[in-house]
């Protein structure tokens, strides 16, 4: 029997907060992607905790889909980073101001 679920939910909230702060504060696009992964992992931890608390497998099935979406997001995002780096030769979010109309 594991600990009560609220401990896990508080931990997931802290992990999500750290990821969100990193996403807002850092300027390297790759590190910003890693912070998005942190936030997705916090959501996964929340889903698994609710799955255990409610005794329902649906939370774990949703985590399965979140993993797939995270993989697709990383693939497309890193493709965009490579395409931008080829043109601008830097991986900083500030350089993307050239995209404004």
């Amino acid at each position, binding site marked *: 029997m594991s600990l009560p679920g609220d401990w896990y939910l508080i931990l997931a909230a802290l*992990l999500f907060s750290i990821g969100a702060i990193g996403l807002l504060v850092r300027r390297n696009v790759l590190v910003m992607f890693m912070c998005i992964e942190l936030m997705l992992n916090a959501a996964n931890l929340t889903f698994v905790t609710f799955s255990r608390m409610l005794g329902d497998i649906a939370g774990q099935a949703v985590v*399965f889909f979140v993993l797939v979406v995270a993989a697709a997001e990383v693939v497309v995002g890193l493709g965009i980073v490579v*395409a931008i780096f080829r043109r601008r030769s830097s991986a900083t979010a500030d350089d993307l101001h050239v995209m404004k109309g």
Partner: protein
Amino acid sequence: MSGSLAALLATSHPTVADAAVFAVGALIILVGALGVVLSRNPVHAALSLVTTLFGVALLFIEQNADFLAAVQIIVYAGAIVVLFLFVIMFLGVDRNENIESEPLKGQRPLAILLIVVASASLIALGVSAHWATGAHQVTYPTAGGYGDVRQIGKSVFTTYLYAFEATAALLVIAVVGAVILARRPPRDAGVADPPEATGAPAGVDGPGATAAPDTAGPATPAPGVVPPVAPPVVTPPEPVAGGTVPEEVAQ
């Protein structure tokens, strides 16, 4: 917190080992997450991300989600972080960056304040609402351990079948989109010299380039293509034009 801890010690269901596993997992997760945010080097950030992912997998196992823990290790630590590291090394951005400079004045304290307030209100909301509300065991019950694989399979292939099919389509679209985004745009080779690039390999060394593109590509177009273009500075792009165009001819 302390009341919850006292209630935890009073009830006999969770053992000390469970609390120890949770403490170790939480420590690993938080240290890794802070390492991702605070490290100057992107490679160090990626390795800290691996640490966090292992901690999350540990807590998955602690909560009887063994299958998801294995998938977490294989997909995240095995594929996604390797992809991150590959792109970091490929782009050559594995050097320290200056994280103290703040181009937008006051953005960092404002962001930290905003997130702290948001997460504190989220936790307060969860405490006041007693965390998990709703019906128990709506779709399929958890079985624990290896039984979860059967339950996840049943759930994915019956209740979430359409979502599963959409996932397959999403992955195909992501792969095609990544290839289109990451490939070198072909007009870079065409802008330099369109008539020579299209005409010379097709007519002169089309069959030879398909047989041995690495050896015949840089050697044979150089005498045929460079003299009309005339400036010798253009020679580095020429093997690129000679190397890519025969592939298009071969297709």
